[in-house]
């Protein structure tokens, strides 16, 4: 019997799959002792087995990385063929056991004031079909004091020109002023059946701005205020607020992390990999995601937020061949700034930096990006242009504004989370005293 007739395979079974990963196609590597790894996508279901063919008998390492960064791996030995049909297979069981997702890993115990609160896919707290005004952070099962309150504020169009320049130059405070009649203030205790920025026509979607007042005594944070940006969605948004376990990273930023997830598990997974630096796995998902993102954008029920997440990830892990859909993302959704930022970066990466400022400027006039990744890219992009166009006063001013925004943001948060309040220098001095 020649080797060509032999079929070698590994049967991979997943057990104790976390809820957040069920149904998700997770990228796996099947690595021989010598040679390139085989990369494959495996749909995770409890006790579900998928079969992967391999070229040779011998020892293989089957491994993957969860969105939290946790590595899972098992070795298995594919034997020499023994059966009459020339087949040889081995089995490997991946027990997800204690491995949990990012939000689950950081989640404090939350007092369920209502039994209607249910764990969401990421282990977050979500009340189906409604968002309540109050989200309570508790010490682990000890205290019953409320720690965080959120006022669901307004969604408006920001104007950089309306900012108070004298304040901007006097401290590190980010000053953003709402303008015109578009400002819509919602009462703080409103219960929302759906995201206020949602409309049937997704081109009119607006992000929701939330002012959060919170104290996290166990993390040394007293009476902070933060501006959270909540992306619009077809369904009530599952929003997770977590205390930042490492609040010293940026004392200018709120000690609060805000997460959400889209209704597309693979888009979320790709974005998680990019945020966690697992770029090799993200690259594995990238080719099909390009097609997918265009579909998401151009389908009848288009979803610019999901497309934005895909675009952020693809900007990081792929080259710049296809930009049309990203340009559409930038042009079609005139209340969402993220698409314009991403397209601005595509232009820079294509060597067309002279056109990028227009899009960064559009992004600034649309307001604050929905995702911290956008805050970071806006800052980096405008700083790049500032170095390139040293005589352009508008570029310099816009870069200044982007730097100020980034300095006020907790960049560890998935959703944009800006610090509000007094001048940060003032607060810092008060704290020092």
């Amino acid at each position: 019997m020649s080797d060509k007739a032999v079929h070698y395979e590994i049967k991979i079974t997943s057990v104790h799959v976390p809820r957040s990963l069920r149904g998700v196609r997770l990228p796996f590597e099947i690595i021989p002792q010598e040679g390139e790894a085989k990369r494959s996508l495996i749909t995770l279901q409890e006790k579900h087995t998928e079969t992967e063919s391999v070229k040779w008998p011998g020892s293989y390492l089957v491994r993957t990385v969860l969105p939290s960064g946790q590595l899972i791996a098992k070795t298995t030995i594919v034997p020499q063929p023994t059966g009459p049909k020339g087949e040889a297979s081995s089995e490997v069981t991946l027990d997800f056991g204690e491995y949990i997702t990012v939000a689950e890993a950081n989640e404090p115990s939350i007092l369920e004031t209502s039994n209607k609160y249910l764990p969401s896919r990421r282990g977050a707290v979500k009340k189906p079909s409604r968002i309540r005004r109050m989200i309570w952070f508790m010490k682990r099962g000890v205290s019953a004091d409320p720690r965080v309150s959120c006022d669901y504020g307004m969604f408006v169009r920001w104007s950089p020109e309306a900012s108070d320049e004298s304040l901007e130059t006097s401290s590190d405070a980010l000053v953003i002023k709402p303008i015109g009649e578009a400002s819509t203030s919602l009462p703080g205790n409103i219960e929302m059946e759906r995201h206020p920025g949602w409309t049937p026509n997704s081109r009119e979607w607006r992000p929701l701005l939330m002012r959060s007042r919170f104290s996290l005594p166990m993390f040394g944070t007293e009476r902070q205020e933060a501006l959270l940006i909540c992306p619009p969605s077809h369904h009530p948004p599952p929003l997770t607020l977590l205390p930042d376990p490492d609040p010293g990273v940026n004392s200018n930023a709120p000690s609060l992390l805000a997460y959400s997830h889209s209704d597309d598990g693979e888009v979320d997974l790709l974005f998680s990999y990019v945020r966690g630096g697992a770029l090799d796995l993200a690259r594995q998902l990238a080719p099909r995601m390009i097609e997918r993102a265009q579909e998401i954008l151009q389908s009848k029920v288009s979803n610019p937020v999901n497309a934005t997440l895909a675009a952020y990830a693809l900007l990081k892990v792929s080259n710049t061949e296809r930009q049309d859909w990203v340009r559409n993302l930038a042009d079609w959704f005139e209340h969402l700034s993220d698409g314009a930022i991403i397209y601005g970066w595509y232009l820079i990466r294509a060597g067309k930096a002279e056109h990028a400022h227009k899009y960064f400027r559009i992004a600034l006039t649309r307001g604050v990006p929905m995702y911290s990744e956008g805050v970071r890219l806006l800052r980096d992009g405008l700083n790049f242009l500032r170095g390139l166009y040293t005589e352009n006063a508008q570029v310099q001013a816009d870069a200044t504004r982007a730097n100020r925004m980034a300095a006020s943001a907790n960049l560890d948060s998935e959703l944009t989370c800006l610090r509000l309040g007094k001048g940060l220098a003032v607060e810092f001095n008060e704290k020092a005293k």
Partner: protein
Amino acid sequence: MALIWAEGFTGEKALAPLWRRHAVALARSQDRSLSPSDRGAAIVEAEDTKIIYDNTVAEAEAALAQTATREELRTHALVVGVGRYKNAGIKALTTSVHGAWAFADWMLRRFHHLNRPLGSVELILSPSDSLGDWKPSPEAAEKLGLTDGSSTTTLPVEAATFTNIKNAFNRWLKRAGTHLDNAAFFYFSGHGLWKSEPFLLPEDAQIAKRIEGFDNLIDVQQTQINMFNTQPSVQCFFIDACQEVISQLVENPTTRPPALVLWTPANAPVIPDRDAWRYEGAFPSRKAFGPADSAPFFTQELVACLERRGAAPAKIANAWRVTTSSLKEALEAAWRWREEADREAQGIKFSTAAPGSSSTTATLCHIQGSPEVIVEVRCHPATAMPRAKLFVESGGVRSPRPQPLPSPWYTTVTQGDCSAGAEFEASAALATTPENFEARPPVHPVQLMVQPRV
């Protein structure tokens, strides 16, 4: 300039001895204890030796460019260590200079790449007065051509001021950029700060005071971003510096980041499959640190990972290789391992960043011999961990965890067959079966399923 080594330049053309002759003459020319005529002679000698050195460097750079035109790939390193600071408010360091010495020494002696061998090493140092000039190991001294037979051979190099670093950076990137697929390694060890991005402090860094602002800080993040369209495609920064938040930075009212870039941007398309990483010895807001008399912990672990502990999971062409991605994995486990294993290393935490990177497959170096593997052992359920006496067995030798702890255990074994298990006190009424596995680098996770003892 302190290009101390270039491929093919040995004997009379070895760069380090030429530089040392110049540096020694220059020092004599500034020594006021010498007679005017001696100083005058030293000035002439300093000028002459500088011309010889500069001409030889130009020759070396031309030769390296020729190498690139033959499609032969090379790795180019720039190593910077800062221990002495002009600003009285910035504390002098010794570990950082030991770190730069260790990394330069490793590059010269042990760096091994089958397809992209070492092309050049440039070294810039500001050692504190207590340390003095670099005393390369005998093996490194021999490679540098410093073969005067003395065990105390020293090599003075240029001071790590902002201008010197920037000039060296530009020369280094030009050398490395002669071929798209070359690799450029930048190592920095010294003080660092953090304000939404990391800043590095050269010897002449100025921290803001009442009457003066920040000056000469290095904006490493923006520098890397500006390099997105600059050859070569492999650009690795190893930064062993604190990322502390200080009040002067928070209070700083200026809107620009108070730091300068080492590389100015250009309007050109992105380098395809750029593999650009920054491996850092500190997590934002934290300190990097190390023993006063040797390299910082990050540099120690970095060298260990590049040399034996950071291999990718499979051999290619019968060789174990360290990739940008496997090094990231290894370093993320290495600080956990080191923190538990070394009381002095409490509080270390490394981090990585990939500004504008789009690939993770570049091979940084190859490992000679068998690699080590960091094994991560945990129990399921996790509640069993505080009672689990974990162990690993490799090559017939059992290594126990010193004490049970709630956190996963990171330890090292030689690549190959081994096992991991846990024992429990009788009172715990728990049991688990040891797991046999083939340890694959860089990090092999093992989850032990713990059951109630029947």
